[in-house]
């Protein structure tokens, strides 16, 4: 094998491996019945672990194959691990939920699994075609996941909403992409960058094309004003799917965005810097302010997810190494805390411990079920970014990046927003701990959901105390 062929193979090997595993899952799905369907998910976890173990690139190693089309490096790997974690946690947390809802189907896991392949392509793409197809793979999977609970009108509604708006945004993305392609003459990131450097940036169509493209990206990361779908979709989607959707696709969008803007758009940094700083401010404020007035916890978490995208955008705007490292770390931590929170939310609701995710129905949860209340408390404070919990480390890295880039004003706005955000997270804890229960419920929660929330909580605590490992994990990231 020539070195080039070797390179090619390595660059795409993880995805290929994943695809093979995905196909095995499809087969497994057919072979299992009823309760056993959860095996599909568990096998998926095993496959993820296998892939993660064997696909780890050497530190600093870059495998760019297929004519600069796909890149496998630490950056891709770290985000792959994030997706894998999101998958693992969601799978563990979802079995019980799906069973209770009567939608325990292997497809849930298969689709989630394939969506991760799409995300991996998005992240490792060095060419807009690969990126686009990966993006759509992910997006279509997400539409399906959102509408997965067919019997529930809300789920169907959220699926359709997500789908229509998503398709619209990818239309805009594409339209923008065509102009960029037209002006630079290529779909390849490196060539785009080259062309932009050589004067294509002067071309006015590039500007409008980029704005349309970035708007498409902004849609994926749910940045204001392209965020409108997010609360409705998260609220309607099956809770584990919602948890997954707030984490993995967003991380993928951010990662691919980082790749794109750092490599392809490096010559027009001013443009996207301004673009995302405007959006970051809007996103943080809008997400937090509206979350304040929510009475449905799931919806509140949806808005909070929007605001978290705002914080992460600060890392993007910082335009330094710390910035995207912070984004990676943030996504990683966010995976644990948000999926943990969503899992708990879903399970508690299904068991009747909370009603309809209403805030008031959380009253006295600490009495009804102290362990889960404690878990929820940890997730809430972590999301709020209170040390020593993991969420703080994430925010801290973001602020570090912003300060380094001398984006003081953005850092200040971010900090103020995180103070503002505290209130609505706290409100959940207020109801859980400070109020008397509205009604008594006797219910036990299954093992897998417990494990998910337990892992989430433990990691959230552990990262708070020993962030070193996590930080050094992302420290080797290089775009």
């Amino acid at each position, binding site marked *: 094998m020539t070195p080039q062929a070797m390179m090619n193979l390595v660059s795409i090997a993880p995805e290929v491996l994943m695809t093979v595993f995905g196909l095995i899952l499809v087969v497994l799905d057919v072979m299992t019945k009823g309760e056993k369907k959860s095996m599909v998910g568990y096998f998926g976890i095993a496959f993820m672990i296998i892939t993660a173990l064997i696909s780890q690139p050497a530190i600093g190693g870059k495998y760019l194959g297929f004519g600069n089309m796909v890149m496998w490096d630490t950056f891709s790997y770290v985000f792959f691990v994030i997706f894998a974690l999101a998958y693992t946690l969601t799978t563990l947390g979802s079995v019980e939920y799906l069973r209770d809802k009567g939608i325990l189907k292997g497809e849930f896991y298969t689709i989630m699994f394939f969506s991760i392949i799409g995300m991996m392509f998005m992240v490792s793409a060095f060419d807009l075609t690969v990126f686009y197809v990966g993006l759509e793979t992910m997006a279509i999977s997400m539409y399906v996941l959102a509408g997965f609970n067919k019997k529930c009108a809300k789920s169907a509604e959220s699926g359709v909403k997500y789908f229509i708006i998503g398709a*619209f945004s990818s239309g805009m993305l594409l339209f923008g992409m065509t102009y960029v392609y037209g002006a630079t003459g290529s779909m390849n990131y490196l060539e785009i960058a080259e062309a932009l450097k050589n004067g294509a940036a002067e071309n006015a169509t590039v500007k409008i094309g980029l704005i349309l493209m970035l708007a498409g990206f902004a849609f994926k990361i749910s940045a204001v004003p392209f965020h409108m779908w997010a609360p409705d979709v998260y609220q309607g989607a099956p809770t584990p799917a919602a948890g997954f959707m707030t984490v993995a696709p967003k991380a993928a969008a951010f990662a691919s965005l980082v790749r794109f803007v750092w490599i392809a758009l490096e010559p027009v940094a001013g443009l996207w810097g301004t673009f995302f700083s405007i959006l970051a401010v809007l996103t943080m404020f809008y997400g937090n302010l509206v979350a304040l007035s929510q009475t449905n916890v799931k919806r509140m978490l949806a808005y909070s997810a929007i605001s978290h995208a705002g914080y992460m955008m600060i890392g993007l705007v910082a335009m330094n190494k710390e910035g995207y490292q912070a984004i990676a770390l943030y996504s990683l931590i966010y995976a644990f805390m948000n999926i943990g929170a969503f899992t708990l939310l879903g399970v508690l609701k299904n068991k009747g411990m909370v009603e309809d995710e209403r805030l008031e129905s959380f009253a006295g949860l600490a009495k009804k079920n102290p362990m889960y209340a404690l878990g929820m408390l940890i997730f809430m404070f972590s999301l709020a970014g209170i040390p020593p919990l993991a969420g703080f480390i994430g925010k801290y890295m973001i602020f570090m990046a912003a300060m380094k880039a001398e984006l003081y004003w953005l850092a200040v706005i971010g900090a103020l927003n995180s103070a503002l955000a505290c209130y609505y997270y706290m409100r959940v804890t207020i109801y859980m701990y400070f109020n008397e229960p509205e009604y008594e419920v006797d219910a036990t929660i299954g093992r897998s959901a417990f494990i998910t929330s337990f892992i989430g909580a433990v990691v959230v605590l552990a990262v708070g105390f020993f962030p070193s490992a996590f930080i050094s994990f992302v420290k080797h990231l290089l775009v």
Partner: protein
Amino acid sequence: MIFAVLTLLGPLVAFLINGLLGRRYIKNAAPVVAIAGVSVSFVCALILFYLVSTQGFSVDGTLYTWVIAGSLQVPFGILVDPLTSIMLIVVTTISLMVHIYSIGYMHGDKGFWRFFTYLSVFTLSMLILVLGNNFLMLFVGWELVGLSSYLLIGFWFFKKSAADACKKAFVMNRIGDFGFYIGLLLVIFTFRSLNYSDAFNAEAIHHVKETTYTVFGMNFSLLDLMTFGLFCGAMGKSAQFPLHTWLPDAMEGPTPVSALIHAATMVTAGVYMVARCNALFSEAHMTSQFVIFAGATTAFLGASIGLTQYDLKRILAYSTVSQLGYMIMATGVGAYVAAIFHLFTHAMFKGLLFLCSGSVMHAMHDNLDVRVMGGLKKKMPITHWTYLIGCIAIAGIPPLAGFWSKDEILAMTYGSGHTFAWLVGTGVAGMTAFYMFRSYFLVFQGTPRDQHLHDHAHESPIAMTFPLVFLAICSVLVGIVFGYPLEDGFIHHFLGPVLTPAHAHAHEMAHSTATALMALSIAIAVAGISVAYLFYVKMYPVLPEKTVKTFKPVHKLLLNKWYFDELYDFLFVHPIVMLSSVVFWRAIDVNVIDFTVNAFGRVPMWIGSVARHIQTGRIQTYIFTMVVGVIVLVAFFYTV
């Protein structure tokens, strides 16, 4: 040194024993402990006095370093000099007598042990006050006697009046202490030390004599400012105008307390302090003028109010105020020795008078209104005679104690050229004689006005009469023993070295003038007594009633104590309470600050609840927003 420490230890140990074990174990044996403690002090005081007077013994030692802050080091130190030893004598004597007296007086009270515990605290504090060798020790004692006073006035705390009175006493004193505090700070600022030995160093004082100090943009002489601050403390403690109003109210406490604290010892602490700081005060001319003014005013105010009161203890209280005014006035004119001398004699006879009043009260079932008494001389002979001796002493009839000291003060005042002050002083002497004898006549002479009460009256037990007799003897003797011959007696030689000799002026005064003054003051006293006799024996009750009718507004003014309490309420208490509750608390704290704070919470909530309506749930709206977003962004980037 050892004796000095022992002096302190006596009451301290007594206090600890009674305080910790009193309620459960000692109970009625409390006086034994307390008296043992104070006896130790008394004996030590006598020994110290003996040593100081005969061997020129003195101590200025440090027990340990108390406060250290950078270069400033304040020792917990003891100073024994003639002034101290005199004060020790006064304090321990009266204290011992009151302790003994209290066995009888407080017998059967629920808080018997508590009372003696407090008395021990007081004695201890007072001893710290006089024994300290620096300003901070003085201040400690100063505050601690305030505490004891608070505790003892409020001994019967379930009476609202007592509870009010003790608080008032403490707060009024605190107002003075504020000044004291500033004084202290200025002393530190000036001398970098709080030790008397550093502060009263003539060279150091000379050094800062001309220095001015800026406060709130105004320039003052440093010494004036410092001494004025210190004097504010004295005004509080010694009940000088305008901080005098607490003392009469303090009579809510048990009578022995009034005798000990509010007549003989604590209230004279101010005089002691000014005398102690004579080195500073004599250089501070502005302050001296103020001291004289305050003293004279107080003397007059006290006496004038005393004229009309009907409550026996209040009469004595105003008399105390008035006498304190005398002493302060004396310090103002530089007659420190005279002031201390008067302090000494006053302690004896005023202590005696108060104890007598307690005895009367005991007999009259705690009734103190002089209008219902009368003719008690038969029923209570010892009380009667001792009270009479006290009255004569205070009126200033030779050779009893009051004459010697009071006359000296007046002479000094005249001699120093403060004629107006002298005039006031002389007038007050007459008034004093009048109202003291007024009380005497009303209580002991004449016919009983409430037969029922009279029938049940009886002489007090021995525990109470013994102190009366003892103090009566003292009242007769101390003046002549210590003060004879006038201005050249034992006390002058004794205190002279510590208290700057008072007067150039005095020595210049012709002998004939001195004699004339003496005669005048005796005459005034006699006149006062005669008028009292006329009013309250001969022509009672016609003449008093007629006088009251004639001078109705004046009488009312005096009866109501010049309306000082009401004035203070109107000027300070109400405005401050209103300001605090209406402006500071309700308006600023709640409605401005907290409102703002809550607004930081509410405004985002409000914005959020408005902004959420953008989220209509319709796909078209969402897409519309996206498109508008793109349009705006495009427009933005094309214009930028």
